[in-house]
């Protein structure tokens, strides 16, 4: 089975290609079979591979399929290969499992869409790229997948291309991502320059044995390790929506909701975290950059959480929530708690996907309405959605025994244990905010009186099983996945991932922390419960929205700031976008039209003028022609004789 590892990304890719070959108007059933079947097969194959891997003895399965540079550039070692180790195993499970569930959900959600077939083609392509990203054995394959998911993100955000905003949002996502990709490339180039390869095994082994390979070389006081770590992190900033490159994620909500669930919650945005954790050996040797990563993560977490407090669009709340939770993951990675980061990645995939799909169910019932101010009291009309949504909300809020409690707690524990009390405080406050805004959303949507139109009220209905069954499955995940990381010696995930966390020679072993996990856990739990209770008092009653508004008007300046997302988009627009647009216009009008087109026009005009003048030689008089003829002969004669 492990020999078929390469099929896992190829199957969804084949699904996408097959989709394109299905002729003009294929029946929906056919599209469904092909494009949901492919991820299903991938999932089964992945489970098979994982089973074999789990029951085998090899720690790392590496398969090289093609030695790309062997022929032309033997000094460079870049191959096309896959690597299955503990880290990619976890990612593989998450991506294929959650991905498949979302495909199933999409069948129901997108049933009435005209672009059904196009949607599934893109979604399959995305799966292929994401799987490539996590299974790659070197940074180049990762980068190919990285770009591939960026492309699919663009395609799927701009899915409703006949409207004005989605294509713009798609462009924004792609361009902001590109900034990060540029840095990622710089990091890769630096690695190539020093190691002549991009292979994980070769690079990490070399560094582990001899850390001076990356701590030695410096440019302007910056070590190679710091440089690569920083470049890679900037790439992660773009892909995983950290400050300052997060601005594309909220706008990405313009895409269909399952896309938001899959790409912008569970999988693509986590690629940055995966990349940082994969590169952990370098980050351990670049303590300044690691601290930077942690700080950015924490700041992003609290920043996004504050914005989430004031949003009225249910998807936007979840979007900012995603940014915030990703901040947690980077906080963990920056602190060196790599397994905690991956743990939170895994649990987050389940409960965030659940929340998004649940919101999709709500939107579906509301006939497309996303504004929570129009909702209310939906728990009666949408019982399954309601229950699963609450499970997700409890998970994200960090309530025992749901998943988020354990994973978030792990991160806070890491912060405290490292003595980083400021970061710990930020994390704790963010946890409170998270619980608050999440349940604000829950209460506004599911409690109180319905605030929408009569039409919408009539339309309310629970979603079909193709949508609700994935919800339930994810809910089970949101409950149970936390139990993989019980604190203490038996932390399964921590032990499982231990081999992936390399220890460079000469670096002191991270000390075992004595701080009581239980005490910290109780504090976090209490804070979350308090936040939920407070949200209840404000939003829980029938007139929740009015009370919320009243509450907001108490500090209008702050409220305004939050509603307008701290005006970040506007600032970017003025400082970056406008000048670039002006510059581009200059190059367009001034250089392109004037100079380049002008040069061509001059050439054409010259020919034209020459023609205009030259035509006077065609007098129509044969004897003139004879004269020219004769003169030519004279010249020829001259040339021949002399």
């Amino acid at each position, binding site marked *: 089975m492990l020999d078929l590892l390469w099929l896992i990304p190829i199957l969804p890719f084949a699904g996408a290609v097959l989709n394109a070959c299905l002729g003009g108007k294929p029946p929906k059933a056919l599209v469904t079979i092909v494009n949901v079947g492919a991820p299903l097969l991938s999932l089964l194959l992945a489970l098979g591979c994982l089973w074999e891997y789990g029951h085998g003895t090899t720690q790392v399965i590496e398969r090289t399929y093609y030695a790309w540079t062997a022929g032309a550039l033997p000094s460079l070692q870049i191959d096309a290969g896959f690597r299955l180790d503990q880290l990619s195993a976890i990612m593989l499970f998450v991506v294929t499992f959650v991905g498949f569930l979302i495909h199933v959900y999409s069948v129901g959600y997108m049933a009435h869409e005209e672009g059904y077939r196009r949607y599934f083609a893109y979604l399959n392509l995305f799966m292929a790229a994401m799987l490539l990203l996590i299974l790659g054995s070197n940074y180049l394959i990762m980068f190919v997948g990285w770009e591939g998911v960026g492309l699919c993100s663009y395609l799927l955000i701009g899915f409703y291309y006949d409207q004005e905003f989605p294509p713009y949002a798609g462009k924004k996502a792609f361009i902001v991502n590109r900034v990060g990709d540029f840095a990622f490339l710089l990091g890769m180039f630096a690695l190539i320059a020093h190691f002549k390869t991009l292979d994980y095994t070769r690079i990490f082994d070399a560094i582990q044995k001899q850390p001076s390979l990356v701590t030695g070389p410096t440019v302007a006081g910056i070590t190679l390790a710091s440089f690569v770590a920083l470049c890679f992190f900037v790439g992660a900033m773009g892909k995983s929506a950290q400050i300052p490159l997060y601005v594309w994620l909220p706008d990405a909500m313009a895409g269909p909701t399952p896309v938001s669930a899959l790409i912008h919650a569970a999988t693509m945005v986590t690629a940055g975290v995966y990349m940082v954790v994969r590169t952990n050996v370098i980050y351990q040797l670049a303590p300044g950059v690691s601290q930077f990563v942690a700080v950015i993560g924490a700041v992003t977490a609290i920043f996004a959480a504050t914005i989430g407090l004031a949003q009225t669009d249910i998807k936007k709340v979840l979007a900012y929530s995603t940014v915030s939770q990703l901040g947690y993951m980077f906080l963990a990675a920056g602190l060196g708690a790599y397994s905690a980061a991956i743990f939170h990645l895994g649990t987050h995939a389940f409960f965030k996907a659940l929340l998004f799909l649940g919101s999709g169910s709500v939107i579906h019932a509301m006939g497309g309405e996303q504004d929570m101010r129009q909702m209310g009291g939906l728990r009666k009309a949408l019982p399954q959605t309601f229950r699963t949504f609450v499970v997700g909300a409890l998970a994200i809020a960090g309530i025992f025994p749901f998943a988020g409690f354990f994973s978030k707690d792990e991160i806070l524990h890491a912060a405290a244990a490292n003595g980083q009390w400021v970061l710990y405080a930020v994390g704790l406050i963010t946890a409170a905010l998270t619980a608050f805004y999440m349940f604000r959303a829950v209460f506004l949507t599911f409690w109180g009186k319905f605030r929408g139109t009569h039409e919408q009220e009539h339309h309310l209905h629970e979603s079909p099983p193709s949508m609700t069954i994935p919800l339930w499955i994810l809910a089970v995940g949101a409950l149970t996945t936390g139990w993989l990381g019980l604190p203490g010696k038996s932390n399964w995930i921590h032990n499982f991932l231990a081999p992936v966390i390399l220890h460079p020679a000469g670096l002191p072993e991270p000390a075992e922390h004595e701080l009581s996990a239980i005490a910290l856990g109780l504090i976090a739990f209490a804070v979350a419960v308090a936040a939920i209770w407070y949200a209840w008092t404000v939003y829980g009653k029938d007139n929740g929205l009015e009370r919320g508004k009243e509450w907001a008007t108490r500090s209008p300046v702050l409220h305004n700031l939050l509603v307008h997302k701290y005006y970040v988009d506007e600032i970017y627009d003025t400082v970056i976008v406008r000048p670039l647009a002006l510059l581009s216009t200059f190059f367009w009008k001034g250089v392109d039209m004037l100079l380049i087109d002008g040069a061509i026009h001059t050439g054409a005009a010259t020919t034209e003028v020459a023609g205009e003048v030259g035509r006077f030689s065609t007098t129509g008089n044969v*004897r003139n022609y004879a*004269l020219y003829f*004769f003169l030519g002969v*004279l010249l020829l*004669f001259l040339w021949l*004789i002399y």
Partner: protein
Amino acid sequence: METLTFLVFAALALGSALVVVSHKNPVYSTISLVVTLFAVAVLFVMLGAPFVGVLQVLIYTGAIVVLFLFVIMLLNLQPRSRDESRLAGQGLQVVGAVIGGLILWFLIFFAFANSSFAALKPLTAEMVSLKTLARDLFTEYLLPFEIVGLLLLVAVIGATVVARKVPQADATTSYQKPPEGSEP
């Protein structure tokens, strides 16, 4: 003796050539051409090619020039009238032509002046004989010979086709307006 012959016939050729290019009556030009051709035929004989000389008289003067005369008579060409000056409206042409001609002559002259010519061997009967000429023609130059035959055939057909009188419905007749009321 030989030199004298040469000079006489050379002068004759040149003189009649000048008449060919300058006389205002085309018939006179044609007759002058006959004289030129004849003089050149004599020069051919002097150069040891009697057969070609005879051919020249037969074909050129006997056929081609007669053809010219026929056409002149058919088209009823008039001599250039008195008031129509030869140089009317074509000053540039004439000047250019004369200058070009002079340049050409001088070029050739200088080309010859800078090369040396071997002395001619005396003529032998063998050099002049028709037998060797004919043998070469029908062995080494057989293909060109046949092709020229074909060429003459094609020329005859072509001339006939081009010069025939076309029926009225041919496209070469001038455009006639369609009857009233019909589609354009």
